[in-house]
């Protein structure tokens, strides 16, 4: 009951937020929700132990697909969002294929290199991808009479998509597939012994999470109106890793908390300018060495401590 009330309160908070905060913060909230989709889809691959270092590249695939479809072919939003996600999923399948025989470092490094490959295609080909300067003039969304160029309508559109994507990802996490992925992480050989097709599940997790990253990319491209290959480089990837590490991947909520906390820290550290990467790098090292489970594990640790204390208390009584 408390859980439903909390969820309802959070949703209501998100619903009335644009009325309360200024336009600048509405823009920040749009980016925040897009990052929520990105981080949550990233967690899906990490549940089977594959920390893909090419995840933001798939956001780029969605963004570039949107740019091409909307700019050159004049496709409407529903077309770009579907095809952007699908394109990402298909590229994801192609990328994960050579990686399926690797695990651990081979996978991390291999996915990093293959992500660079996809990114370099955008850098290399001036037509149609615009080369290193990227693409500009991506049209905003227009649906029926509403002009989504304004921040507030766009906010509600992204909110709708965020709720939808997170709900699907949450269902996947609880489903049999989600459990199979965790089993693969816990013990790959044992999973094979009980008849799990490990390669197929890993490929599926990779492709599905690429699909959602692609949707995040579609929403980003329509909002920014301009994208370039640098948006999806390894620096952005490390920031995504920092969000997810700070939040922790132990539960579905960890990455969401991580994005919220680190975006707050990022906003607060805006005056530091060029020193910000140092702060973020320090935070990343601190969390990995001192609290590898992230903020999420901190909460369960506190709860465990409280439980033990109350249990002790009842015993004494």
């Amino acid at each position, binding site marked *: 009951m408390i859980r439903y009330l909390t969820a309802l309160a959070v949703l209501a908070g998100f619903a009335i937020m644009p009325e309360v905060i200024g336009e600048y913060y509405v823009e920040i909230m749009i980016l925040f929700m897009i990052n929520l989709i990105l981080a949550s889809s990233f967690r899906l691959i990490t549940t089977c132990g594959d*920390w893909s270092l090419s995840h933001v590249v798939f956001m780029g695939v969605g963004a570039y697909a949107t740019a091409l479809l909307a700019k050159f072919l004049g496709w409407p939003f529903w077309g770009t969002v579907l095809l952007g996600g699908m394109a990402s999923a298909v590229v994801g399948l192609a990328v994960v*294929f*050579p*990686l399926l*025989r*690797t*695990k*651990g*470092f*081979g*996978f*991390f*490094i*291999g996915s*990093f*290199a*293959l992500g*660079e*490959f996809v990114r*370099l*295609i955008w*850098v*290399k080909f001036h037509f149609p991808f615009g080369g290193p300067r990227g693409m500009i003039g991506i049209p905003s969304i227009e649906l029926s009479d509403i002009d989504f160029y304004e921040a507030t309508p766009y906010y509600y559109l992204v909110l709708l998509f965020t709720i939808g994507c997170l709900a699907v990802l949450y269902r996947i996490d609880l489903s049999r597939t989600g459990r199979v992925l965790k089993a693969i992480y816990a013990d790959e050989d044992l999973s094979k012994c009980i008849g799990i097709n490990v390669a197929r599940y890993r490929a599926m997790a990779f492709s599905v999470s690429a699909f959602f990253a692609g949707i995040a990319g579609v929403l980003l491209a329509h909002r920014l109106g301009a994208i370039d290959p640098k948006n999806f480089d*390894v620096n952005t990837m*490390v920031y995504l*890793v*920092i969000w997810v*590490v700070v939040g922790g991947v132990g539960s579905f909520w960890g990455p969401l908390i991580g994005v919220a906390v680190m975006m707050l820290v990022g906003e607060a550290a805006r005056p530091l300018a*060029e*020193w910000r*990467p*140092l702060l*973020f*790098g*320090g*935070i*990343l*090292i601190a969390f*990995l*060495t*001192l609290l*590898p489970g992230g903020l999420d594990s901190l909460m369960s640790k506190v709860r465990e401590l409280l439980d033990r204390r109350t249990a002790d208390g009842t015993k004494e009584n």
Partner: protein
Amino acid sequence: MDWPTFIQSISNAVILGSIYAIVAVGLALAFGVMQMANFAHGEFFMAGAYVVYVLYALGGMPFPAAVISAFPIVAALGMVTERFVFRPTRGNVLAGFMATAGVAFILQVIVGQVWGVGLMRSVPTPYMGAASILGAQMSWQRLIILPSTLVMVGGLWFFLHNMKLGKALRACAQDVEAASLQGININKITALSMAISGGFAGVAGALMAPINAVTPYMGHSIIVTAFIVVIVGGMASIEGSILAAFILGFIHTFVTTLFDAVLATMAGVAFMAIILVVKPTGLLGRVRM
């Protein structure tokens, strides 16, 4: 491609392969001992280049002395990384690797803030002129890389096979538990392996400083290639990474000569993908990654 261009490309490929070899051997050595890859290895390369920039271009120290002092300075960076990043996260494959991405960020910011981000630091060429090899022109500056590589890799080979400490290092790479049962201090060996690894990356960067543009972000291009090299060679195999370094050096040079540098990097990644499908252990590796 005419004959002089061909000869020129071959000599360029050998030089580039030597640089890749120095960088990748360090990565492979550290991986063999700790089962841990270092994301900041490219930044160690960058740090080596800055050592030459500061000591030679700004400080007026002779070039060879500056290159040699890059070894202990960057080796110390490697040991600090081992002590404060790899040792606390030992046993957690992911944490150590990702934390070094934080080390990379920190080194980039510090170097950028101390010596500036915007302009390229140009290091004057200490050795003017060029040698003529079968009709190809090779500047002395590039040519000295080859003997330096031979000395370093040969020195490492001698150390690993003939000295007690080197043998202990190889023992750790084979089986950490058995090695510690023989009384080998594991912490000492991992620190040593990171020192050698960092030192090699530093010297490679130092040698490339007069040739490359010296910027805080120059590590990025080298780390992609270094990772590709160690995967192709077989993660923990030093011989494999030397072989793979020269193969990648040839691919990179010839594709760059015929097409361009972006396509050359893509060709390297494509080659890695083929190796991963055909032989996931790498060319000379034995363990599955």
